[in-house]
């Protein structure tokens, strides 16, 4: 029970029910689609870069609470960040949700992303949390290839 509460924290449930930056974007500098065939989660991520900085970022799609909240909090966190800062955050986030967070304490502050710490107790749900991040990587690589977590 405590594991479930840790997984489905209020912040995550709020973001899954009322996701932020849940919209398409006119004239994104890049976009990418992510897909998890295991559960059918789909995300389309739009990014507008100004120089090296993420000036705007938004998403659309359908997915479980974890993947929707992850996309929502990602967009909130990364707006205004540089590509390098985004990449560093992904590394930290990945360590967090795969349970490596303790060993590798270095790197940028996770801020609100820390609410996903409970995911590490649910290995089958790691892909839900990371789908949008993999999709971001594809978007920043300016590839339009569909990302699949399988």
């Amino acid at each position, binding site marked *: 029970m405590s594991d*479930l509460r840790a997984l489905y924290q209020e912040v995550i*449930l709020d973001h899954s029910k009322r996701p932020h930056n849940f919209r398409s974007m006119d004239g994104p500098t890049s976009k990418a689609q992510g897909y998890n065939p295991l*559960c*059918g989660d789909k995300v389309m991520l739009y990014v507008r870069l100004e120089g090296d900085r993420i000036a705007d970022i938004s998403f659309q799609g359908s997915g479980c*609470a*974890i993947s929707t909240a992850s996309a929502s909090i990602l967009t909130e966190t990364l707006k205004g960040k540089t590509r390098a800062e985004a990449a560093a955050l992904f590394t930290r986030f990945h360590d967090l949700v795969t349970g490596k967070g303790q060993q590798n304490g270095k790197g940028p502050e996770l801020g609100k992303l820390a609410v996903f710490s409970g995911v590490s107790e*649910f290995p089958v749900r790691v892909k839900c949390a990371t789908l949008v991040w993999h999709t971001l990587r594809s978007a920043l690589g300016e590839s339009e290839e569909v990302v699949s977590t399988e």
Partner: protein
Amino acid sequence: MATAHDLARPATRCAFDIARVREDFPILKEKVHGKPLVYLDNAATSQKPRSVIEAEQRFYLSECSNVHRGVHLLSERATQAYEAARVKVQRFLNAGDAREIIFVRGTTEAINLVASSYGRKYVQAGDEVVITAMEHHSNIVPWQILCEEKGAKLRVAPINDDGELIFEEFEKLLTSRTRLVAVVHISNALGTINPVQRIIEAAHRRNIPVLLDGAQAAAHLKVDVRELDCDFYTLSGHKLYGPTGIGVLYGKARLLEAMPPYQGGGDMISSVSFEKTTYNVIPAKFEAGTPNIAGTIGLGAAIDYVNQIGFENLAPYEHELLEYATEALARIPGVRLIGTAKEKAAVLSFVMDGLHPHDVGTVLDQEGIAVRTGHHCAQPLMDRFGVPATTRASLAFYNSFEEVDALVKGIQKVKEILG
């Protein structure tokens, strides 16, 4: 302690004792996350009775040998056990001849065999294969591959909002171009029992052969391939309380005899030279290579077990469970059943308002309840109902009314955690 559901429970008329039946399945005593396992994922795979596990074990402990080869005693015993299983399957399906029973890995391979062998020979450019909108990917993709290769067309008969085949529309698709009808007997995602007798009659009036995907059906109702007069029937051992990796293709002998081999190799030949190979007769023609001997023997044991319980006992019990579970789920606000056919097997696919099945499944799992969440290898069907996925509870005769109560409680917990 009696619950509201207990009061609504119908008096069980069944001839078998559920507590005793559960004793036959060792895994049902397992705990998951510290809770008693409530296994409601039988449409994915069923659990195995001790007799099946022991039959496989016995083969490896004291009988292991290859079949159809050796002159030594063990090989003779293995061959006898292997062929005895074929006869068990023949009787189980009421096929006219054991030669009509081909052992394969499962339903998927059985359908691929027919698509590859029968399909390649008889389906040509401009021809059509007819399926329905409720097929599993394994009864869609092999036909797509065939149609693409041949320049043929795959036609899909529509279903209504209850998940029932719209028979008139299906019948309209049967034309002089139709070479085969391939239809699921019981839908894995909806539980719909298709009117296979009518389907076969309609197709046969136009001389079109029919393949039935029996992956879900074989474990839940008596299948009589001669009464049905189907041309091909497929099943998977592991959904029939048997081992994984073993399944059956039934085909009418005259069709199988006319079909080219599926795979080449040992056992499927009668003589080989570099100039010319003569193929073996059926069933060996379709069983290239060393088969899954232990699995086949295990499947035989599973059939013995099911026969001992008897469809006349297990089918009414499963139907009572289904009715009980359907009513219980209907009482929970925010839960909507997908698949409400009049003729239905004990499968309950549902969605919950505002909640994704993946999250539902995670919470239920923490309660020890195993269900399937996702698209159930039936993505076109999910699209038909406008949902990305469902949560599916699929029941077997060893499930109890108490386990349905546990599911209902689990769903309440889902609402509490995610609501």
